[in-house]
């Protein structure tokens, strides 16, 4: 065979000399031999990497997003099911390490132009504990993100006719009406055993959000075009880290660690336009916790089932970006139970782990709906918000997804981190008595209103 090839090269009349013959044609542009690459079917590391590359090329070359998602989740293997609402101790540290998230306490400083001021009777934001977002007088020349000195109380100046002011009294009456309707005025039977949350706080949350969204949709055109989902399903599947298969016919092989989040928020608002980024894509606001143990020590358990990526509706829906999610904590995770078992510090952990896991799943699924995945990292940050509540205490979270590249190969050169801003849980009211709501907290309502009014700068 080799000699035949030599003869073909020589051709008629050419001599086998080492120096270049003048007048010989230049070497052909395309390589004459096919590239020497590893085999596809061999049991070797090179073959495995070649198979992975072929799979990545197949996903890259997929024509539609549905096809991409189908190929991404085609291979089913045992994976850890991550539950956003969990009683596991210190779950939020583990979840942050799985999702490469930095937790920043407090709310992100918002741009001035997007915030209409609020008419409140001399109320000033306190900056203690969890600092409140800075509400500034709308002046376009003020640079967004100028940090306020913590502890400095700022009075809100009314806008010089720029934007209509929010009537906090009217919104407060809407919220109180919803609360009283569900907990006092309606004749309800006794709640079913361990179903207290479905009896009063669930309907109250639905009613509150629908009425607030409706009344604020005149002010925020994004809300008017939004889609409200009741009890939707949000799923996301991803790989992070590697492990060695422990037993079975695949024993000894190095496998990626697979995770799946299956979440059911109580309520969710999806919008057709994306929320603006809070900080630039490459910002570094803290450290991601590193945990040396296997995920099963959390405790986390493996199961093999369909690898779903879903934001709440299919890819064809024009409302493909997320705005706000509302989560209701179940009876199993109520405050009294933690206090009774002397785990008071885990109360906040529950809220944080729910916020981080749910928002990561939602933003990552939104990014996948736009065609990004772990090999094709996001080119713009995806921002979503969430409110976690148990009916009385509200905690607010804002998540910015900067990177999807969490697999073992792609995370090596990845400097980006996802960021989650979160507050502690605060009560919305103290108690409901005789048709009156006592101790209504305007700050919490204000934060909720700010969340609902969040919109891209062009609107």
């Amino acid at each position, binding site marked *: 065979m080799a000699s035949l090839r030599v003869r073909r090269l020589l051709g008629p009349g050419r001599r086998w000399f080492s120096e270049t013959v003048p007048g010989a044609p230049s070497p052909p542009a395309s390589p004459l031999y096919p590239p020497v690459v590893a085999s596809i079917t061999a049991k070797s590391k090179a073959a495995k990497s070649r198979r992975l590359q072929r799979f990545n090329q197949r996903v890259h070359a997929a024509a539609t997003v549905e096809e991409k998602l189908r190929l991404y989740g085609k291979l089913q293997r045992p994976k850890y099911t991550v539950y956003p609402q969990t009683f596991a101790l210190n779950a939020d540290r583990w979840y942050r390490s799985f999702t490469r998230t930095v937790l920043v306490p407090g709310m992100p400083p918002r741009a001035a132009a997007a915030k209409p001021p609020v008419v409140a009777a001399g109320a000033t934001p306190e900056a203690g504990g969890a600092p409140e977002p800075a509400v500034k007088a709308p002046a376009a020349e003020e640079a967004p993100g100028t940090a306020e000195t913590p502890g400095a109380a700022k009075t809100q100046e009314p806008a010089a006719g720029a934007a209509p002011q929010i009537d906090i009294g009217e919104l407060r009456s809407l919220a109180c*009406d919803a609360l*009283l*309707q569900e907990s*006092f*005025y*309606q*004749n309800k039977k006794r709640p079913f055993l361990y179903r207290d949350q479905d009896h009063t706080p669930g309907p109250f949350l*639905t*009613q509150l959000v*629908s*009425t607030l*969204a*409706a*009344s604020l*949709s005149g002010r925020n055109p994004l809300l008017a*075009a939004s*889609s*409200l*989902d*009741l009890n*939707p*399903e949000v*799923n996301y599947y991803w790989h992070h880290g590697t492990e060695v298969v422990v037993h079975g016919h695949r024993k000894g092989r190095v496998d990626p660690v697979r995770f799946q989040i299956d979440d059911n928020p109580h309520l969710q608002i999806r919008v057709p336009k994306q929320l603006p980024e809070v900080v630039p894509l490459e910002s570094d606001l803290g450290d991601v916790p590193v945990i040396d143990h296997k995920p099963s020590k959390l405790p986390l358990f493996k199961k093999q089932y369909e690898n*779903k990526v*879903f934001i*709440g*509706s*299919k890819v*064809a*829906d*024009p*409302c493909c970006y997320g705005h706000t999610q509302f989560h209701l904590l179940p009876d199993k995770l109520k405050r009294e139970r933690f206090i009774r078992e002397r785990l008071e510090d885990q109360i906040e952990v529950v809220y944080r782990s729910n916020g981080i896991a749910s928002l990561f799943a939602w933003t990552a699924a939104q990014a996948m709906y736009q065609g990004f995945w772990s090999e094709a990292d996001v080119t713009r940050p995806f921002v979503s918000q969430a409110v976690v509540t148990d009916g009385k205490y509200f905690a607010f979270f804002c998540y910015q997804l900067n990177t999807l590249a969490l697999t073992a190969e792609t995370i090596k050169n990845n400097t980006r981190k996802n960021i989650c801003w979160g507050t502690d849980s605060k009560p919305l009211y103290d108690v409901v008595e005789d*048709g009156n709501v006592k101790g209504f907290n305007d700050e919490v309502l204000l934060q909720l209103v700010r969340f609902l009014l969040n919109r891209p700068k062009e609107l």
Partner: protein
Amino acid sequence: MVEPRPVREQVELDTVTFAERLHYVPGLARPRFPPWQRGWHDPWHSPGPRCEEMPLYKERGCYICHQGVRMLEGVRQAQWLTKTKLVEGLPPAVQGIVDNPALGLQELEERAKHMVSHARLWDTAEAAPKREKYCPVLFENLIHVRGLSGILMNSVTPIPPVASKEEILATKEHVLETFYPIAPTIDLQEVNVYKELNDTGFRDGYPYSHPHTLFFLESANVRTDRFRPEQLRAKMLMFAFGNALAKARVLHGNDPKVLEQPVVVQSIGTDGQLFQFMVFQLNTTDLVSNDGVKNLVWIDSDQNLYERAQCVPEIKKGVVTKPVGISGFQPDTFKKFLALYLHGTV
């Protein structure tokens, strides 16, 4: 199994039974033993008080109508029970809101198509959502356009009466149609133990105290579990009447009389595709006699919101015959829905 021949009970002489012999003996009579008594009251094994001994027992029977009752004669039966006269089509007040161009119902048509697509096509991770899922989602989306949610919509102010005084008085001549030999109470369960209760569902002082619209969703997955349109309309009528009567009793007292301020309650029923609209006006609470002023109801039945919702494209011989999406969207149905919502506020 053949039934044993009835044995004539012998009362003239003492029968000789095999009770002392402790086993069956052919030829001797079967003994009758007294029923076994526990001797003490075991709450887990006691039969409970008999019907006649229950504290709420009444001699006069009561016919119960609940959400599972399917009327045999449909709307006619419900009309007889509630002493109502039927008028086809929506009342002119509501029709005026439908035709009013100033309310901007045109722009909402695009959003309505969106909401139907979301409910019927996109809302699930599987191929097609089940009716139990898409029916309430569609309804919630339609409500979300204006922002209230709930199965019963209440309002702060009552809906003004739809029919004029002349029309109300004209119902005196109307005769309720009966369908002998069927009694109108045929589908209703007759009970002797009941409690008469006038409950609107809310306590006093509730700011939204006037019932405005009732919504009925037939969202069972199996077709036989769902109500037929006629039965759905009858159910809507019965429950609108019930809410109106409870409110009237609260406002004007328990005595049966003709109301100077008629109470109006609306009702919308759907199975996800067909919509039934109804406006009910309660003119009188005197339901003992067959004549006198009657109540009025306007019904607009069987309005399709869309013809088909195709989740996966139907392909025959390599050619797409039915593409994915909603086809045959009727904006009029959506406009009527909104008009009923806005009735009383506009």
